[in-house]
């Protein structure tokens, strides 16, 4: 079984316990306007262009007419680009590279097993992230299963916005589920992510794996105490919940959007003031569930 991965990141400490490797699968059914991994939204392989590195040497023009130099600006016709990679292959400076690579389950597992000793020594393991692993369920399930069979702890970062059948397959092979819940209000959820939240809530209610529920704090979307309190209250009703975690917005996705030519995603959102973040944290804490903020346990 093959799949498309944007990156396998080793030595991660933010995606589950211990030292972990994270597989970022390409493709997501949500289109959150704040997405910090915009390279994983589309499922197809894309061209990643770092203009600062470009020498304007024209090596790519000779193999692909979709590249053009116009007023000293290197332009790419991304609408017609198929991600074949010939331009990247010719590029001298590394300005053009491919975002996304085909992997078989075995290739991915072999890469992940490079850090097996670190998983064992630290109580770590592997995490599937994205994008949305549920968009490549067979591939994702294959990686989880093979790692688990080798005694490696597996975690799944997911939005759970998919049918129950996929949730059952994936979660059965995950020792830990880290699920996002961004809004309780279905209209607002759809507005911000492009998807409703009915399926997500249903999957969460039926989940039987240890769960960390997370909410990214997004300005103008859910940075009000009512939104956070409602999610926290819902979290409190979930039996497998280990803790609820708030993640503050960061604009790292904007820089990546520039390299992908996703102009609408290049401008960062305004920061949420620290006092506001504290207020939101307090509103979640008031529900009386174990609470984390940005990877650290929140203690009043």
């Amino acid at each position, binding site marked *: 079984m093959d799949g498309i991965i944007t*990156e396998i*990141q*080793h*030595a991660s*400490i*933010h995606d589950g*316990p*211990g*030292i972990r490797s994270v597989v970022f699968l390409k493709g997501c059914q949500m289109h959150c306007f704040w997405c910090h991994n915009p390279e994983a939204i589309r499922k197809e392989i894309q061209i990643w262009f770092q203009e600062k*590195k470009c*020498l304007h*040497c024209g*090596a790519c023009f000779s193999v692909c007419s979709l590249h053009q130099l116009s007023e000293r600006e290197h332009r790419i016709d991304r609408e017609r680009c198929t991600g074949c990679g010939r331009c990247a292959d010719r590029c*001298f*400076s*590394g300005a053009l590279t491919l975002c996304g690579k085909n992997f078989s389950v075995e290739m991915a597992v072999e890469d992940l097993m*490079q*850090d097996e*000793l*670190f998983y064992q*020594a*630290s*109580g*770590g393991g592997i995490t599937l992230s994205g994008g949305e692993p549920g968009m490549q369920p067979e591939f994702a399930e294959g990686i989880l299963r093979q790692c688990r069979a080798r005694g490696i702890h597996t975690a799944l970062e997911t939005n759970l916005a998919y049918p129950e059948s996929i949730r059952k397959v994936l979660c059965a092979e995950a020792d830990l589920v880290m699920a996002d819940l961004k809004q309780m209000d279905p209209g607002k959820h759809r507005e911000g992510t492009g998807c409703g939240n009915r399926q997500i809530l249903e999957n969460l209610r039926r989940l039987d794996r240890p769960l960390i529920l997370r909410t990214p704090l997004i300005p103008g979307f859910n940075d009000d105490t009512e939104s956070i309190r409602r999610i926290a209250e819902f979290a409190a009703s979930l039996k497998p919940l280990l803790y609820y975690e708030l993640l503050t917005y960061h604009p790292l996705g904007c820089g990546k959007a520039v390299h992908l030519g996703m102009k609408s995603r290049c401008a960062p959102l305004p920061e949420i003031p620290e006092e506001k973040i504290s207020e939101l944290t307090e509103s979640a804490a008031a529900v009386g569930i174990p609470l984390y903020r*940005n*990877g*650290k*346990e929140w203690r009043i």
Partner: protein
Amino acid sequence: MKSFRMTRYTGQIARLVAKKKEQVLEKQRKLGKADEDDYGYVLPPEDFMTHFHFPEVDENGSFHGVRAWAKNFRALMEAHPVYVDADDALAGRWMFMMSRMRAGYQLALAPFPADYSFLHRDQERYDLTHGIGKDAHFAPDYRIGLALGWGGLTDKVRKSLKRLAKDEEAAELLQAELDVLAGIRNWIHRTALAAEGEVRRINLKLETEAPETLQEACQWIAWFNMASRTYNRDGAGGQLDEILRPYYERDIAAGRIDDEDAVYFIACLLLNDPHYYQIGGPDREGNDQTSRISYLILEAAHLLKISCNLTIRVHDRMEEGLFRRGVEILLEDRLGYPRFSGDNALIRGYMRNGYSAEQARERIALGCNWMSIPGREYTLNDVVKINLMKVFEVAFNEMAESGQCSLETLHSGFRKHLAKAALCIAKGLDFHLAHQYENEPELLLNLLCHGPIEKGRDASHGGVEFYNMACDGAGIAVVADSFAAIQTQVVERRRISWKECIDAVRSDFRNANGERIRLLLASSPRYGHGGTCADEWAVTLMRDFVESFPNRHHTPEGRLIIPGLFSWADSLRFGKTVGATPNGRHAGEPSSHGANPCPNFRRDGAVTAIVKAVASLQCGYGNTSPLQLELNDSFLNGENTVDRLMALFRVHFQLGGTLINVNIVHAETLRAAQKNPELYPDLIVRVTGFTAYFIMLSPEFREFVCQRILKEEQYA
């Protein structure tokens, strides 16, 4: 261990540390840069050198030989200003370094009275750091001096002199040792008279008698360190917990002191001089020797928060608590200490040279990267190096000029020239051992070694039991990446021709298309990424280096050579002598650091990758290829950081790693300090094996350290 909290001596410690900061600033103002350890010295009175003169100098203003060193040292000791501080449990500070007071002294080229011009051609061709004329860099056994005291040592020398009076070399050496001892005792006596109370009493006693209490033992060690520093910068420490344990336990049992007293005395010793001390690790039988005082030594350093060089020896049977406490302090203080040695691999490696497990367990990490059996082994660690980039350059140019270009030709040329470089090093080591005695005898370290006084032979001239000469390779990542770049872009992908590659490299990438070619070469696989041809090249080159020494790692005279990979602070200097390299490095840019990959070695810079990479480049005979780890908040945020870091270190040692040096620096602080170093007089960075005050580094060196730390931390 039950937790420790200081309540009584906080005022004294705070004032001592404040004064230390003033002294560092003063040194920076008067002396400017010093790209090395702090050493703990203070500046002498400004007019001292106007009235002090060495009594024995040659026509060039330099001096050499046993008699001159002894007479000059004694004169300096007898004139040495005294230093006491009412807040300090110990008296004295050192102010001079005799080895650097010789006319014509240069750090890289000590004056040497014997002709070794027959080695010059290859020394220059391969940019060899040959070590001829270099001093110290092996370790004393403090227990000898602590048992005898200065009076007992004097008696021991006198007895030997009587017994060996007819042996001309012995008589000359032992007479010199008596001068040395008289000088030191004079300094102690004068200092004692300037002190008051308990410090005065202790020092008057120690002028002659052996120490009996913990405070006296710390003071005795401080005197030896200060005298030895004054003589020739010797900075090797020892297994401090085991050295001090008997005194501590006796004092505690007798009710003379409590743990707060002990920590105060030890803090004063660490403040006196940042020697390389070890704690924990296996004893001769392999049992862990961690004790209460091992923890107290850590707490003393934690209390001081100054430049410090403590090493925790990690092994299979170690006490988990000491390891954990060390990592906690490393994370909390962010001052680059303690560091951690991998004793399993070190012991296993040393045994491959034919030594017993008991002997191997006594060999400890006593300097930047060095290993030595205290008092028994002459090693010349860290001052003998082969610049592998230079050897590569010679082979590359030779291939280019021959017109016979292939990867095989280049590799066989590299090995051929490496063997020549190694032979030159080996001959140089024999030459050093034959003549160093005439140049600069080890009159201080001799006193705390097993053999020199008994045999009447200098440690550099047959006095000690073992002669295992160190030689380090430097710049291996640049060479591995260069081979990988050629393999990838010229041979396999054929993106450029051999001629294009050679022309670009030899023009420093300044010819037509040079920058394009440089970027192409630089985008090739890098050592450290894991599983690439560059990683394979690095291992191949490490093996080439190990096998390059003649006669199964022996000099022509039969001395063992133990290889390691380390560049110390020489990364800048090594880079300056080498033109552009095919990994895309410009001419004159620094070499890679020790066994570390080049900065930016992989996009995610995964810290697990560097941990595995450096573990794969262990030469395997008991010397180190240290891992220099730069960590920032991105790896350290979150829960259970201590456990994660311990896991990282454990895996490195499990894979054969030998020594870990860690920098944990806040990037913004470092950037700000780079702009205005004088605003950060207490910022300490781990340069390599040693920690240093940032302000004491030269601007060029600061930039080098910043580049390394900031480049690596952004991915960590």
